Structures are given as C-alpha cells and as structure tokens.
C-alpha cells in the first residue's frame, strides 16, 4: 500500500522544520521567495520518498540534506548557455555583498554534481559555511572519521570533475 501523509501531519512537520529549511535555502539561493519554493519542494521530496528511506537519520537531518541538495541543484539549473554555465545573476545577484561566498557557491554548483545529499551537505557546511570537521560531526550526528572520509571523497570528486570540465575556477577551500 502506498504511504500517505495526512495534511495535519504535514502541517506539524512544516511548523517544526520549515524555518530552519527556509534559512538554509535562502543562504544558498539568496532569495527569500525562491527559498520558500525550495522549502515546499523539500517537503514534497521528503514525503514522496519517506517510505523508501533506509537511512536512520532524523527527519530534521533528512530534510536539511534534501534542502541543501535542492538549493545547489537550483543554482546549477540557472544556466544560460552551455553545460554548467551559470546565470550571471547567480554570480552577482542577491548575495552581491558577499562576493567570496558567491564565488564558492558558483564553484560548488559546478563541481558537486553527482554527489549524494549527505556528501553535498557536508561539503557545503565545510566549504561554504566554514564549519570545522568536529562541528559538522556534532551537527549531523556522524563521526569525525566519517566527515573526514566524505570530505576526502569530495576533494577527489571535485578534482576529477574540474579536470573533465577544463575548469580553472576558484578553489573551494
């Protein structure tokens, strides 16, 4: 039987988690309205896939990962031309007073395609938000060793993808 979530349960889930997800999405896409749309998308993806989850992570962590992935994916899809060419708005736009952060977002959007939601979340926390490995471990309830492994995999993924794209952008460190 298909799993179905009642409206009241969704409302409770929304009230509990949406504010944090709104902040997460807005910090990446830089726009409150777009962030609200991404929060809706996040809950829809969570509800649609919930019955298939094998991960033991909490609803908050699952939602946070989905929101991060959806936001980076939205940046990725703001293309104007060829593969991985981002809309100039993303590079200059709503985060204009934080050019370094915008550069990092640009790099992450380009270079992280193919990572899992967990890997992307760890990478964004480390490279964009400046979290230490210990901070990520305690924030996501995973071991410091796991964080290290994920970041090593991320670095490897980025190098390979950068080489494939002939990318000479800013380093994501």
């Amino acid at each position, binding site marked *: 039987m298909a799993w179905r979530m009642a*409206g009241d349960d969704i409302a409770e889930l929304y009230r*509990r988690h949406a504010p*944090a997800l709104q*902040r997460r999405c807005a910090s990446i896409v830089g726009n409150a309205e777009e962030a609200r749309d991404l929060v*809706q*998308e996040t809950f829809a*993806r969570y*509800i649609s896939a919930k019955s298939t989850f094998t991960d033991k992570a909490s609803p908050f962590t699952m939602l946070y990962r989905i929101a991060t992935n959806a936001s980076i994916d939205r940046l990725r899809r703001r293309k104007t031309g060829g593969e991985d060419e981002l809309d100039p708005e993303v590079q200059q736009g709503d985060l204009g007073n934080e050019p370094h952060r915008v550069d990092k977002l640009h790099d992450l959007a380009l270079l992280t395609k193919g990572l899992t939601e967990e890997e992307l979340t760890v990478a964004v926390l480390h490279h964009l938000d400046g979290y230490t490995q210990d901070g990520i471990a305690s924030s996501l309830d995973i071991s410091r060793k796991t964080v290290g492994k994920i970041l090593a995999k991320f670095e490897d993924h980025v190098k390979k993808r950068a080489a494939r794209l002939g990318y000479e952008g800013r380093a994501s460190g």
Partner: protein
Amino acid sequence: MAEPRKLTDLELERELAGDLPAARMADATAADRARLGELRAESEAFLRSVDVDMEVKRIQQRVERAKPEKSPAWWRWLVPAGALAAAAAILLVFLRRGDSPGPGDDIQIKGEGVALIIHLATSGETSQRLGDGDSVKPGDRIRFEVDAPKAGYVAIFGVDGSGKVTLYYPDGPTSAKYDPEDRLMPGAIQLDATPGDERFMLFYSKTPFATTTQNPAELKLDSDIIVLKKHE
C-alpha cells in the same frame, strides 16, 4: 570575557526543531543561548509570514504531481471526444465570490493544476503572502507568483470594485511565456483607492492567447482567482 560559542548554528536549529540531544544542549554557553533566541525569533517571524495551510496544500500538490502516471499516456487518445468533454465538464467548478456580479464571477477553475499566489510587499526586502479574503488597503504594493506544473503562457487580470477590468500582466496584447522555474512575475502593482473587493484572475494555457478581452471569463482556460478585500 564572555565564553565563546560551543554549538553550531545547525545544532541550534536542531534544538529549535526538538532534534538535539539534551546532553548536547547542556554544553550551551550564554552566547549559544543568545543565538538560539535570535533564531527562535526569526523562526516565529517566518511562520507568521506564511499561510501554513496553503503551504501544506502546495506541498500536497507537488507530491501528487511527482507520482508516476498509472496508465500509459497513449490511452487518453483512445477515449472518444464526447467522453473527454464530459469528463472536462465534471472538473469545472463554477465559482461565485462576492455579492455583486461582474466579469470575474464567471471564472471557472479547472482542476488543481494552476494557482495564483499574491505577495504583499512589506518593509525592507520582506513580503507577506496573501490568501483569498485577506485585506489590503489603497497604496499597498503586491506581486504575483504563478504555480503551474509545466511551461506555458499566462496572463493576470484584475477586476476592481466598480467592475473595471485591468490587465496586470503582461503589458501587451498576448500572454507571457511562463517557466515553472521562474514563478515570480516581474514588477509590482500598487492598489488604487477604488472601493470594494479586488479580484485577481490568473489564466494559463500551453499555447499563447490574446489578452485584449474585456471579459476574461470568455477565455475558458485553466485559471485561478483570488479575491482581496480592500479597506481604507
């Protein structure tokens, strides 16, 4: 000297969501608690700024849209045209809102496919989402958002309390292209002082359509309508 923070913002977000182990929160410093207070205030302000029931409805619509089709697409072409017309007629919901008749009264909402969302510009960069029956006043600035599942063409009309029809978007004789990835329509409108309710009507089609009509109801397209109550 104040003790530095020991918890990350993400851990504080988890605390607000009831997801952080109590033992971890026991490590919180005064600076952590101050930041927690800021995040809590932001969260409360955010929840006040949205219509949770409407957000839930949108989420449910997205969940439904994400479901795979149960039947292969080609079966529809095997249904006789008469049966299709009858099915379409069942889907039409005739809406009557407000007390006085006008061009907006004949708008028919087809299914759940498209939705008009109105945002009231508030102070700074923020906005408040308006729902059907919400109150506005002359001078308020609003923006439109369109929620439709696929790319197509849209137009937004308004009918004021005197029955006057105004095309708000786009500014031209034909509908504007719509991209589901870019749902917020450009520009904002400022409400005038005409007394009475203001009806906003969204029309959507997969193909371009003329916007020169003075009776939008005759468009017979997928549509949505929101009525705002205007107060002095």
